[in-house]
């Protein structure tokens, strides 16, 4: 069995062993979304106007929450340092890990957002735009939150620090996605912005794994 397939099956088995890792962010997302009408007003016009933005922010938080597990448990078990002895470059393995993370941990979160959209009475066409922006933007977000997780591996009580450190870097993505949603709301052309968002994701997915592997290498070198 090739190393790539081994990593993939291992990830699947880990999910089967710890279903909470996937369920908790979804739970979190739905909980935050349910809080919005309670904190604001059950007025559906108001909700539909801010709903898509709320879902975006909540997804962002949920995404960062589950990125914390990306490397932490493998690092403290000493499995992560074994990656260096496998006959693949570390960058490649990091890239694979980020891809599996996106597939198994981020995609479920995106798939749940229509339900969140329905309960916040977001109009269907906006909801569709929301889904598209999430699918296009999350690769970049996954890479950056992975970097946050990798940078804070070395600190014993990192907790939410990875989130705090990486959040400012999400600004361009959030702004572009919001631009798409605004245009979708008044029915104008969203394609140019989506292309820009996609470009950002592609660039991030190309370069950030290199930085992530450097950060991991650094933290392995410092632990004992």
């Amino acid at each position, binding site marked *: *069995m090739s*190393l790539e397939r*081994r*990593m993939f*099956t*291992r990830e699947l*088995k*880990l999910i089967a*062993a*710890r279903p909470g890792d996937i369920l908790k962010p979804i739970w979190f997302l739905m909980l935050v979304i349910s809080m919005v009408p309670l904190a604001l007003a059950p007025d559906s016009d108001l909700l539909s106007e801010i709903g898509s933005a709320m879902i975006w922010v909540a997804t962002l938080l949920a995404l960062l929450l589950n990125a914390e597990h990306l490397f932490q*448990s*493998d690092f*403290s*078990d*000493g*499995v992560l*340092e*074994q990656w*260096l*002895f*496998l*006959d693949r470059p570390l960058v490649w393995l990091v890239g694979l890990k980020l891809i599996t993370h996106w597939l198994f941990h981020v995609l479920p979160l995106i798939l749940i957002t229509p339900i969140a959209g329905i309960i916040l009475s977001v109009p269907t066409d906006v909801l569709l735009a929301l889904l598209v922006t999430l699918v296009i933007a999350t690769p970049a977000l996954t890479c950056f939150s992975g970097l946050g997780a990798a940078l804070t591996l070395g600190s014993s009580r990192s907790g939410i620090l990875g989130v705090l450190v990486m959040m400012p870097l999400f600004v361009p993505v959030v702004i572009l996605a919001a631009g798409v949603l605004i245009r979708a709301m008044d029915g104008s052309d969203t394609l140019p912005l989506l292309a820009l968002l996609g470009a950002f994701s592609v660039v991030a997915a190309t370069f950030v794994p290199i930085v992530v592997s450097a950060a991991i290498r650094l933290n*392995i*070198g410092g632990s*004992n």
Partner: protein
Amino acid sequence: MIFEPIDIEISDLSCERDDRSLFKNLSMTLNSGQILRVAGPNGAGKTTLLRTIAGLFDIQTGTIRMNQSPLTECLQQILYIGHKPQVTKDLTVLDNLKFLTGSDEDHLKRVLSDVGLKGYHDSLVKELSQGQGRRCALARLWCVEAPIWILDEPYTALDVEMVKTLDARITSHATAGGICLFTTHQPPQSLNYTTLELGHVT
């Protein structure tokens, strides 16, 4: 199987941690078939030396070469088992070993019975005792075909029988032309090894 002849040349290796010099100007050559025990009191830098040779720590000063080429190009030749568990608690014994070694299931089951974990292949690692977990990590010694073994405290939590099994495995590895470096506080009885004392070098 017999390994290609291999040598590790360490020259002028020095390391400082937290402003303390752990070892200074350490030079030695390890050849095929050699078993080296790194000894010394706690904090003498045993783990640091092992991790440096394994390429996990950056070399501060000095060089380590394997068969004349720099260390970083030869990491696949190394099997490193540190004192972290090296296994994932939430996975079964078999799944752990499958991922790390890439061996097939039948071979792994044979290995597991060799290390006294027969019938445990479907157990989660967190259900095992500490010694059994250690056996699971050490089972990789029977699967991976790396000539250089670097084992940090491999004897911890092992019973007498497993210690003997491990000694035998290390001996057969050295006979096949492999190199083994290890640390331990209880000197193993049935093993022929040379010792490097750390902590006395000034």
